[in-house]
């Protein structure tokens, strides 16, 4: 695998390899020297056309822990704000000798275009494109779930909120079902995308019913910056029907956990006492994000140009 563009591209084996690799890399964090020499001399470019703090910092920390050189390129204050096209930006990066590009773009499909256009020869990692996918977020969510629940086979996971605008929901629905979990989406009908019936998950409009006995619930941020129409009558009504509060959290199974990709709208989709409660693993998600992104960068950058298939090169004899 030279690129990570979408969780739909990942087989169960690929996903488990990334998660197992991340689990080993997580232990580097406990050491005195929190650095590995693996990607020494390689250059990772963070290409962010859209604002992001935690994803960008997380990728930066991951690349630096693997000893790669990191160049961060934000649209604001760069040539992109002067109207440079994606192609010209890509050619610039190629000319600078980037080995991997981590790209976030407001247009769905931009990372795919970058990877398959022939503009750049380097690896492309999708850090969120439009309303399409955010694969590393889904991988860190799956990693966090596995730490708490073990094998996800048959586990019931509920994803609640603004599915329409959420690349996190789409990536998670596919990845978690690949890992064997039963995913239920809960959202107002206006905040479900067209074609959601083709996703590998169930859809419900009743949050209380869906939460009954569930093993995990993932609250999505209500993306106010994308709310260009009247998707729901008022924030109060949204919060009452689709917000997670203490009463609703009590419906979950005993060992259930609460996730949120951040940043949270406290009091809107999640109440403060649940966000800070014992079931909340929201801070762990951030920690795990670094380990998962280290695993992705290692596997993507380690792949040789001729390996187009799975994550690992074809088995070959290694001299003893």
């Amino acid at each position, binding site marked *: 695998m030279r690129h990570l563009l979408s969780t739909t591209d990942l087989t169960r084996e690929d996903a488990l390899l990334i998660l*197992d*690799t991340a689990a*080993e890399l997580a232990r580097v964090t406990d*050491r005195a020297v929190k650095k590995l*020499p693996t990607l020494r001399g390689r250059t990772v470019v963070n290409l962010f056309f859209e604002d992001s703090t935690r994803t960008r910092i997380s990728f930066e920390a991951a690349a630096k822990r693997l000893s790669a050189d990191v160049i961060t390129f934000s649209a604001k204050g760069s040539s992109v704000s002067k109207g440079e096209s994606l192609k010209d930006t890509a050619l610039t990066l190629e000319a600078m000798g980037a080995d991997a590009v981590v790209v976030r773009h407001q247009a769905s499909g931009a990372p795919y275009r970058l990877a398959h256009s022939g503009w750049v020869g380097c690896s492309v990692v999708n850090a969120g494109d439009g309303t399409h996918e955010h694969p590393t977020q889904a991988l860190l969510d799956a990693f966090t779930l596995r730490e708490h629940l073990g094998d996800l086979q048959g586990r019931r996971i509920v994803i609640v909120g603004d599915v329409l605008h959420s690349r996190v929901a789409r990536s998670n629905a596919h990845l978690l079902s690949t890992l064997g979990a039963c995913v239920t989406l809960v959202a107002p009908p206006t905040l479900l995308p067209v074609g959601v019936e083709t996703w590998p998950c169930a859809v419900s409009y009743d949050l209380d019913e869906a939460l009954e006995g569930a093993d995990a619930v993932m609250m999505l941020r209500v993306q106010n910056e994308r709310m260009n129409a009247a998707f729901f009558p008022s924030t109060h009504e949204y919060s009452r029907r689709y917000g997670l509060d203490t009463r609703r959290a009590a419906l979950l199974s005993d060992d259930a956990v609460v996730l949120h990709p951040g940043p949270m709208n406290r009091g809107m989709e999640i109440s403060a006492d649940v966000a800070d409660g014992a079931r909340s693993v929201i801070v762990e998600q951030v920690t795990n994000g670094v380990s998962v992104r280290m695993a992705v960068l*290692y596997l993507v950058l380690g792949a*040789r140009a001729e390996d187009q298939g799975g994550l690992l090169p074809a088995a070959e004899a290694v001299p*003893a």
Partner: protein
Amino acid sequence: MTSSPEPEGSQGPVARVLDAADISRVVGRISHEILERTNGPADVVLLGIQTRGVPFARRIAVRMGEIEGAEIPVGSLDITMYRDDIRLRGPRPLEPTEIPAGGLDDRIVVLVDDVLYSGRTVRAALDAISDVGRPRAVQLAVLVDRGHRELPIRADYVGKNLPTSLAQSVRVHLSETDDVDEVLVLGGGA
């Protein structure tokens, strides 16, 4: 750094150079040699290099423990992230690295591997150790030394010196991972 099994017999003759009884005697001798060289087991930590260095290290630790009546700390080291050939060979899955609770600072660390060949694995392991702690000394124990070093590295404890040609390959099978204890030389005119 022993390879995964591949169809054997396709490489010509197979010679079994060590059997289960030989390997057991090697474990016993190396255990005594380590104890002699380090003046007893105090401060000794054994670290097996993934994958087959690990069961070999555990066997030596058990034998040393029997001799001295003390428990010898033993751990494992995965050196994948320290290899110098990731760009050539591509990524591999990681195995667990377990450092014993006492850490490595001021200890005598005995690295344990199954086969010593180019020396590049040991080079990577030395780098990995220096990121974990600062041992007083690092020594190297191997089951088989087959020669053809590419780096200035030698073993302190050797189970068997095995002159080989580059055309041959050495396979170590240990019962923990392969159901049988043996060392084979494949190919060439062995």
